[in-house]
């Protein structure tokens, strides 16, 4: 959490960053053009990182770039005997991490033994992630995501808040038979009381003020959180209509 403004950087510093980012025409750009080009570049990267969000470049990302040790790999001496990290570990397992109420991240590995067995058994038609969604003990459903045999991770969109999710890595053979290779632990997406009680917030101005007066800057910017912004947008669209 660092305060920073790209506008504050000198033209030389902007050129340095542009050069480090691999911009070909950095020498010919004026200051304003450099700022715009860098913002575009980071905006693009932000979008690639978070396709789910209508993102605007966050200028915080420029922090400390001037003290970046880019391109110098031997910055720490190696200790004796250490080896490179493996790409994956020799086990069949899948893990699920909650990123926010709308997205989770799954990563998995298939052990060499299981890989050999699968190949010996005639290979697979499809490898898929079976995402189980449980609203209550009597109300659950699932959906499948097809993945490649060499994939090892996936971002999963979670359709509903307030549910339990788990994910299984499954193989489908050529006859359509399904085998679960491993299953993740469960994650629970949070349930927000107010998303289901918007009328109450709408009808009681004092209640609305109680919650929102601490979540908005003096310039009217609402705290950066999709749930809060969704509530605010719902209330304002009703107010407009």
């Amino acid at each position: 959490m660092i305060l920073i403004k790209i506008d504050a950087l000198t033209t030389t510093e902007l050129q340095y960053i542009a050069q480090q980012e691999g911009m070909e025409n950095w020498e010919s750009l004026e200051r304003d053009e450099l700022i715009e080009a860098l913002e575009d570049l980071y905006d693009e990267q932000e979008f690639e990182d978070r396709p789910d969000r209508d993102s605007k470049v966050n200028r915080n990302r420029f922090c400390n770039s001037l003290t970046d040790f880019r391109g110098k790999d031997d910055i720490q001496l190696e200790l004796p005997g250490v080896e490179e990290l493996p790409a994956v570990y020799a086990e069949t397992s899948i893990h699920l991490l909650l990123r926010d109420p709308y997205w989770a991240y799954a990563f998995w590995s298939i052990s060499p033994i299981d890989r050999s067995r699968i190949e010996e058994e005639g290979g697979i038609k499809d490898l898929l992630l079976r995402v189980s969604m449980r609203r209550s003990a009597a109300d659950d459903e699932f959906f499948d995501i097809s993945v490649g045999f060499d994939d090892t991770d996936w971002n999963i969109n979670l359709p509903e808040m307030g549910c339990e999710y788990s994910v299984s890595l499954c193989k489908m053979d050529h006859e359509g038979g399904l085998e679960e290779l491993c299953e993740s632990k469960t994650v629970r997406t949070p349930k927000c009381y107010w998303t289901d009680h918007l009328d109450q917030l709408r009808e009681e101005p004092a209640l609305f003020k109680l919650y929102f007066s601490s979540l908005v800057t003096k310039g009217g910017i609402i705290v950066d959180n999709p749930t809060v912004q969704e509530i605010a947008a719902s209330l304002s669209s009703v107010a407009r209509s």
Partner: protein
Amino acid sequence: MAKNRLSLILHAHLPFVRHIEYPRFLEEDWLYESLSETYLPMLRMLRRLRSEGYCFRLTFSMSPTLCAMLADPALQERFIKYLELHKDLGEKEMERCSKEQLECMPLAKMYYDLTLKNLSDFCDLYHNNVLEGFRDLEDSGHIDLITTAATHAYLPLYCDYPTAIKAQVEVAVQSHIRHFKKSPKGFWLPECGYFPGLEEYLRKQEIDWFQVSAHSMLVASEPVRMGDYAPVRCPDGVAAFPRDYHLTSLVWSNTEGYPCDGNYREFYRDIGYDLPMEYIRPYIHEPEVRVFTGYKYWAITGPTNEKRLYRPELAAGKVQEHADNFLYRIRMKNSALDRSLRDGAPFYTLGFDAELFGHWWFEGIDWLEAVIRRASDADDLFLTTPSDYLATFPELQTVQPGYSSWGQGGYSSVWLDGSNAWIYRHIHKAIERMEELAVRFPEQQSLKQRFLNQASREVLLSMASDWPFILHNKTSVGYADKRLRDHLRNFNLVYENMCKNAVNTEWLVKAEKRDNIFPDMDYNIFNPSYNGGQE
């Protein structure tokens, strides 16, 4: 008259960076810059107010990694060298400015004098360890010291690993007791990262309270009677204090905040970047890596390359104006909230990174001083702490805050995105394997015990939230990537050796020397059935 109760929490944290194998190391400057621009000037300001008889209560969160570095004799010696180098630069700058940039001469003198003060305070007053200064202010009742996770791990992403969270909390509390001789009553959640249930780990360490992000109350699964204007009690009894985003952003917004004023000093214009290489070379890093030197002569001015000369007297006027405005806005807010609050007067919790004051916002410490002076003199404002609040108002609504953080998006996406998601495969595996080692090899002695203790340190160091944050922000990516990989590779070496019933002593001696944090580390903490020798 109703009191406006205000709690300021300053979070002092830096990742563990210690590379005494090099004569100078770039990322160690994070510590030296924070010491010379934030911690030493902050302590000077607080001691001055205390000596003038001002009553105030602030809370400082001191991270275990920062405390370890501040108490480290080798880093203390290197900081003295850093100050001496900056003193030399000051002398050279005063000479240069007197010849070719006369208008900057008073500023060069100002920075030179600050360096001398820092040198004197650090060596003579604190005997090289500024933790003494914080202890002293706590002993006199002016500040409360609290802790945070041992290596500042972003805890929601470890919710499947209770032993790892327990280790982060317990090692932090042990570290705090070692440095400050007291148990901490509060716990700063790194990045305000909270998931329901986290409080249970805190309760086991007798922590009374923690802070959460502003929206954690709105996104909770039950309505919260006082919104963000009072703490709540989690079902297990630990209190959660929501941060007031509106008041915080008066200071901490990079578009609207006070530090954006054009009269304040520009952080990013520094002679380390502006002066010719042949002049500045002795004061930057090899081989010709330009860095901040702290000698900065220009005001923010505006979105332009043509900066005005920094004028401290204009900035000082703005400091007073902004302190007045801050208190005015609190009073206005209190009046506006009057009809919304059914359960009494509001309690405002504001949390900041300590380095904002002095380091990023040069005048920030003066602003804080002005706020404290005004609040002490006012009869409707009261600077207090969460611990004091709980002592006065023990009856709180019982409710669980919602899953949240203070990062972009308000959940975990800063620490889990396309740039850094790969790390969790390895860190989670290291935690699982560390648990396995602790179960398979309990209560070891001598070399194996040291070997396993070092493995625990490496796991904890890999969990720091700083590394995925840096990867996300695309700043010192090379360094963060290397640190993460090194800790994990170090851990894997121990795991593989222990599986062969071997100890790599050459590695152990070097690793203990390099990553010497947490001298009391006990690897048994990673055993899921370990209870620390308690019945």
